[in-house]
């Protein structure tokens, strides 16, 4: 039914090259601010990709912080028992949220469009409450501080540079997974995005693809949570608030929801802007609002989409 496509398209390759290039930055410079901004951007990119996967099917998910929390707290709790191996933790940070997404998905995915949005919003609120109520496991409102550093093949990744390199690694891995997933199911997701009922009537088993997307998106969000906890050395409820869901959605929409480059561009730009406004932080949210209005009204494809369209016009 669907044409055979190359495993990775142009946009995906560009994305992978970009994320690979990020590894170079900690090698070129020692500047702590650059490290900080880049690290925040790398965490944000992974979270934005989680949003983007669902957006491929025209489903807007606010549940990203909830799955990030599962990933992040898993690592923090394992750290209490001195379990810090990078490969094991990466696998767990991906798998546990993905597993949690299975029953949640069964509940949430039967809801059409708008209900889905609202219910995922409620899910992230529930996660915050669960974190507060389970003090013995998650440290409750205090969180878990002093999470030990990641150990990769025996070396403790403690310095700022090592933490950043690890974040680059997680982001690269997430991009690979996201690229492969969305490329492989490109036409299935597109069909669902266009017209779900029509797709179903044509024989597409819609719920399967939604489920795969939801579960993998949850896993990717878990990786973002791991990266965040590693950056802060702390798992704290305030890092996984439902408000941050708005930020990740903004990054994706403003960057452009048409290609995998969108979340990358959007996150890089907006994280940089937020740091630039450090002391005028109160205006940041208002600025996001104006940007969202402008992008939605004038630049439907976001930054990446508009750039591509301009390029095409110039090309003729």
């Amino acid at each position, binding site marked *: 039914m669907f044409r055979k496509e190359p495993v990775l398209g142009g*946009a995906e390759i560009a994305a992978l090259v970009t994320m690979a290039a990020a590894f170079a930055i900690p090698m070129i410079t020692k500047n702590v601010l650059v490290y900080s901004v880049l690290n925040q951007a790398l965490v944000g990119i992974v979270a934005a990709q989680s949003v983007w996967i669902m957006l491929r099917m025209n489903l807007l998910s606010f549940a990203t912080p909830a799955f990030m929390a599962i990933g992040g707290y898993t690592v923090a709790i394992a750290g209490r028992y001195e379990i810090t191996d990078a490969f094991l933790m990466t696998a767990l940070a991906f798998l546990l949220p993905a597993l949690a997404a299975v029953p949640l998905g069964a509940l949430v995915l039967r809801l059409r469009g708008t209900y889905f949005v609202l219910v995922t919003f409620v899910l992230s609120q529930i996660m915050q409450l669960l974190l507060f109520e389970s003090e013995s496991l998650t440290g409750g409102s205090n969180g878990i501080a002093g999470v030990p550093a990641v150990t990769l093949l025996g070396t403790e990744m403690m310095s700022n540079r090592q933490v950043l390199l690890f974040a680059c690694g997680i982001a690269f891995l997430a991009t690979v997974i996201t690229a492969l997933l969305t490329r492989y199911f490109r036409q299935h997701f597109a069909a669902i995005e266009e017209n779900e009922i029509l797709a179903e009537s044509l024989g597409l088993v819609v719920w399967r693809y939604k489920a795969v997307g939801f579960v993998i998106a949850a896993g990717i969000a878990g990786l973002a949570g791991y990266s965040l906890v590693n950056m802060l050395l*702390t798992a704290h409820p305030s890092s996984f608030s439902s408000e941050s869901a708005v930020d990740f959605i903004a990054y994706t929409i403003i960057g452009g929801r048409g290609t995998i480059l969108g979340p990358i561009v959007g996150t890089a730009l907006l994280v940089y802007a937020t*740091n630039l406004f450090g002391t005028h932080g109160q205006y940041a949210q208002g600025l996001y609002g104006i940007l969202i209005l402008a992008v939605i009204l004038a630049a439907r494809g976001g930054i990446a989409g508009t750039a591509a369209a301009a390029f095409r016009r110039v090309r003729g």
Partner: protein
Amino acid sequence: MKHSRTPLAAVLTLFTPLALSIPLDLAATAAQAQSCEVKVGAMGPMSGGAAQWGLAMAGAAELAAAEVNAEGGIAIGGKKCKVVIVPYDSKYTADGAAAGSNALASQGIKVIIGPVGSPEATGIKPVAARNEQLAWNAAYAKNALEPKFPLMFHIAPGPGTWSDAMVKHALQSFPAIKSVALVAPNDQGGTDIASVDAVAYRNNGVTATEEYYQRGTTNFAPIITRLLANNPDAVDTASSPPGDAGVIVKQLRLAGFKGPIGRMGGPGTEEILRVCGGIDVLRDFYWFETVAETEKVRDIDNLYRKLVGKEPPGGTALWGNLPAARLTMKAIANAGTAEDASKVAAELRKLAVDDPNMGKGVWSGQKQYGINQELFFAFGVGIIKDGKNLGVTRMEPGT
């Protein structure tokens, strides 16, 4: 066609992160090349609901810097250098404070006045340690100080230090209190304080129950119904934000609760009075004043107007933060550097706690946290009885 869109987009995304990092790098080195400046960071929430605390922290740092600059600056390596305060908005979150520590470190700043809240203190501790920075946090968290973070100092003591004295004083004014219900939000800023307050009450023979509400609650009527079911003699709003506490007071009185209301938490009495409808509604109230106000203390506001040239950030937080900022300036001068946090910390620990406006205080914290790096000045216990403000009683440190 699909493939023509990617090269430009690829160029964009490939070089955006690289391109962005260059101006940041240049900016940092350019700043260091300027003539004789000593940079000190100030951190706290400067947006959102807790903005007044962050602005007060920055204000204290600015005033201390202005005082030193009025004398020509701090003597570093034979020259007198101007002190410049670099503020950062940490947004009352752990990641905000961590990002702030890194942002300030990138400018070579190793001394920070702030941050303010419990999540911020939690977030900054490991990162500041990694960046080898000295910081002063104002959080009331149970672990505001830890022996494993020797560069972390504490602006003022949390309830573990003063709640006992406060309870005793409150019981003098309101001896009929045999049971109290504490109300606080269910996050770190609420639980750390209310639970410690509860212990202080129990140690003084008052039974205490703790009730936590979801932060963001606007209507407290159900919580109040629940609280009043046990017929407490008093209700303590602990560290609930003043806006919430005002509503709680209003609704408690509407429900017919006539007992005294307490606030063993932070400042904000003015806002509470504004929201609840006035002193006649509040009627019987006892609260913790972070600063024991005197003429000399109030003069800090005049100093601020004179030296900084702006209206001071409102409230008492500016006064409470000032001694830490001033002592830090002295420590930097004694150490002869602001770039080696350990040296500055060593000098800081040697200084006597004596402030021209706030008076004499002591170093404390050994009992609470195992490390003696907290400033303890006289605090106050305010009493409103029968609708009359009886004023704030000064309580000396060590009581």
